[in-house]
Structure formats: structure tokens, C-alpha cells
């Protein structure tokens, strides 16, 4: 029995990965293409889960934009959203949040799940470093 428990403990980290509630919520919709990238690497020690929602046509995008309360029709917008309700804008308090990035041109919304301050900092560093490299 003890041996079995040890084996299960070893295998637990492997089976722990699964589809998030956020992914399941949007994946069932016909007009949306949804992907969950589990463990997206920000740096050597920090990873985040990302849910990407792509509207298949303009009508689907308008509907999604309305649901997420995305204003304007050009460029991209970004905000911190409630971990269960991404449309609700929140401030960083250390509690789990979603970094939401919405692009009108791509008809895409990306939801980065942040649960720790280290992930929050790593995400900002990732953006800054890559923007510098692009310039």
C-alpha cells in the first residue's frame, strides 16, 4: 500500500494538468476557436496558463467584444480581469487574476492566468523584454 502511495505521488504532477473552467466555458461555443496553452513559459522559473479565444467571424467577434465589454474598434486593449469573470476589471491585489489582451485585428482575446506576484512580474518583464527586442 505504501509503495502504491509513493507511485501515485510521483505520478500526480503529471496528471495534474487539465482543461480549465475558462477553457471549457468558451470551447463549447461553435462560433469560437479556443485553445488552452498550459504552462506557457515566461522565463526559466515562471509559467502561466493561457486561454486563447479566436472569433471565427465578425459577428462572433462583436458578440465576444460585447460580453467582455471591449470598447473601440481598432488596435488592442489590455486589462486585469477577475479570475472567474474576465469582463470585470480589477486591480492587482495579489489574488489570482487574468491579464486579458484583446486584439480587434486578430479577433482574438488572450487570457493569461496569474496566481502569484512572481508570475505577474514575469509577465511584465516578458512584455518589456520582447518589445525592446522588436524595436
Amino acid at each position, binding site marked *: 500500500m505504501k509503495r502504491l502511495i509513493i*507511485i501515485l505521488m510521483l505520478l500526480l504532477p503529471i496528471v495534474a*494538468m487539465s482543461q480549465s473552467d475558462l477553457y471549457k466555458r468558451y470551447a463549447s461555443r461553435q462560433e469560437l476557436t479556443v*485553445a488552452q496553452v498550459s*504552462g506557457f513559459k515566461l522565463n526559466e522559473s515562471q509559467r502561466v496558463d493561457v486561454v*486563447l479565444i479566436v472569433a471565427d467571424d465578425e459577428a462572433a467577434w462583436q458578440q465576444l467584444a460585447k460580453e467582455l465589454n471591449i470598447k473601440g474598434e481598432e488596435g488592442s486593449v489590455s486589462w486585469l480581469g477577475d479570475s472567474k469573470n474576465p469582463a470585470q476589471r480589477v486591480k492587482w491585489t495579489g489574488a489570482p487574476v487574468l491579464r486579458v489582451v484583446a486584439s480587434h485585428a486578430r479577433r482574438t482575446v488572450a487570457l*493569461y492566468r496569474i496566481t502569484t506576484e512572481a508570475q505577474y512580474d514575469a509577465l511584465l518583464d516578458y512584455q518589456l523584454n520582447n518589445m525592446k527586442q522588436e524595436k
Partner: protein
Amino acid sequence: MTENEFDELWQRAEAESYGQRLAAEYPAWRRRQNRIITVVTSLVLVVAVAFSLHTLQQRQRRDYEKVYCNRVGTTDVQWAALAAEMLME
């Protein structure tokens, strides 16, 4: 001694001899069983540890661990790239 009495005695002697042989061989059989259990458990543990290490190594090398998608025909790499590109938007 009648023939029946002789048969009875013979059977009893045979049964007692089997009992003694079983009693003598039981510890060795038990040791073999334990050895088999230990070997099988060790093999399972080694495979589990090797698999965990392999997964961890792969995790360190790749930009993502796993991708789920509700559409067929898309590649995991494309989605990981999109997750990176969206941060540049």
C-alpha cells in the same frame, strides 16, 4: 498387519512426509515471493521516476507544457506562438 492397515499406515506416512517437505520449503518459497514483489515494485518505481524526469526535462526545454484546442487541424506550436504574440499587441 492386514493389507488395509498397511495401506492406511502408508498413506499417513506419505501425508506426514509431504507436510514436513512443505514446512521445510515454505521459508524458501516465501523468500522467492518477496524477491519477486521487490523486483517488480522497483521496476515500476524506476519507470515512474524516469518518466517524471523525462517529463520535467521536456517541460524545461519547451515553451509550453500542453495545448488543448476545440478544433482539429491546428498545431500546438501555432497556439504557443499566438500566446507570445498577443503579449506584444
